[in-house]
């Protein structure tokens, strides 16, 4: 996925050289991607840098790994205006992000969430938060804790009180 995204970005860069500027993004783990400015500005954060003329050298994308950044670039390519003519096809491609079946999906969605949040990409953030909401729908509190791997920091008394207060949500 990583190579495809990079090749796609640079090849389209060749054809429109001169009119479309290429931005260089560097992931946390040092991987470098060249992306068309028109595509990368789907990120509100990057758009801000471009508008402020701060995007002249390599842009470090902290907290985002090369693997995740490649997924983000793929997302940008698919969502560039005019890139996908068929709306249905796009929805189908997007649907791969809709379901969180196992741990690796969960980690991918987490990485994408953090990247979408950091880079401020509304469409991607929307898709990933919906996927998480869908995944926890109908789960009990304990199942949610397991899903997020979060341990309760309520003591026994507090937990009992909360359960009592919200009893209607715990009856089947």
């Amino acid at each position: 996925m990583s190579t495809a995204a990079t090749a796609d970005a640079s090849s389209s860069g060749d054809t429109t050289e001169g009119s479309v500027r290429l931005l260089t993004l560097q992931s946390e783990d040092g991987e470098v991607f060249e992306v068309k400015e028109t595509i990368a500005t789907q990120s509100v954060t990057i758009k801000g840098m471009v508008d402020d003329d701060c995007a002249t050298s390599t842009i470090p994308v902290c907290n985002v790994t090369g693997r995740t950044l490649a997924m983000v670039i793929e997302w940008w390519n698919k969502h560039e205006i005019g890139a996908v003519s068929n709306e249905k096809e796009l929805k189908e491609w997007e649907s791969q992000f809709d379901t969180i079946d196992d741990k690796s999906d969960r980690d991918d969605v987490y990485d994408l969430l953090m990247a979408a949040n950091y880079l401020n990409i509304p469409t991607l953030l929307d898709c990933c938060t919906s996927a998480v909401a869908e995944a926890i729908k109908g789960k009990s509190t304990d199942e949610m804790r397991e899903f997020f791997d979060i341990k309760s920091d309520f003591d026994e008394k507090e937990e009992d009180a909360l359960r009592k207060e919200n009893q209607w949500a715990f009856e089947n």
Partner: protein
Amino acid sequence: MVSNKFSMILGVVQLPTDVLETIVDRLSSEIDCVRLSMVCKSWRSSVKKRTRTRTRLPFEILRLLCWHLLRFQSTKVFTRWQVLCFFKNQKFTSRGGFLFDTRSSDSLDWVHYETSWIAEKSIFKSYLVESNDEFLIVHKILNDIRVIIGDEDEDEDEDGVGNGNEDHEVKAIAIAMTMTILITSKFQVTQLSKFEIFHIVDPNSSNIHVATRLHSLDNRTLFVAERGSISIPLTSLDGLKRNCIFFLDDSSRHNLSRDSGVFYIEDGRIERSFPFRWDDTRIFFMSWLFPNRF
């Protein structure tokens, strides 16, 4: 040991608060929100903050029981609703209200003050009282004592309190613009069970939609009645106990008890002024009169 990336590191949840809040916005069920709010302490405050202003209800509304309007400050209208609703395979009554600005009738500010569930068999009335520049909603919760079989057909207006008993056939017909409920042979007698007081937090603010439960009126005393309620500070009431509600039996329908007296907020004690009785031959009205105040 870490099983996935959402997990806590050194007891700190890694997911940013704004991302969590966006996830909360995507949850369509109030039950999911409540369950999510109990995952851990930091999430509890985020989820609560996010869901506080919601208008979504965790139940299905079966029937609107009553609908009252109160206009205040010339451009604002406060309306209360009381509904019969279906939740978890049971019928309940629930209540709430909303505030809207008559200048922009399409934007409704909800004041959702539902806090507890009342089983279908008990009913309640609510009163709006201005008290010390605050806006109070007083719920009078009634016990349904008995249903008497009458022999006349009676028309009721849309405020159809008292049609909750399934043993009796209730027919609903629409006449002209008004919904009229035709009830065959039934009377209902009720008796005060308790009062609950809610305080609308700043009705002028556009972003606060919450009413909080008051457990004390401090030095005030309320006189409530359908035909006008009033809040009086203790200093002007020598000899009366503070922090209580004087109530009248002011049901305007077939409720023929004489259930009037004083309710003490502190301990929920009720002192009735008249012996309780019911009578199916007369309808009477009572209201408070304050000759020195107006």
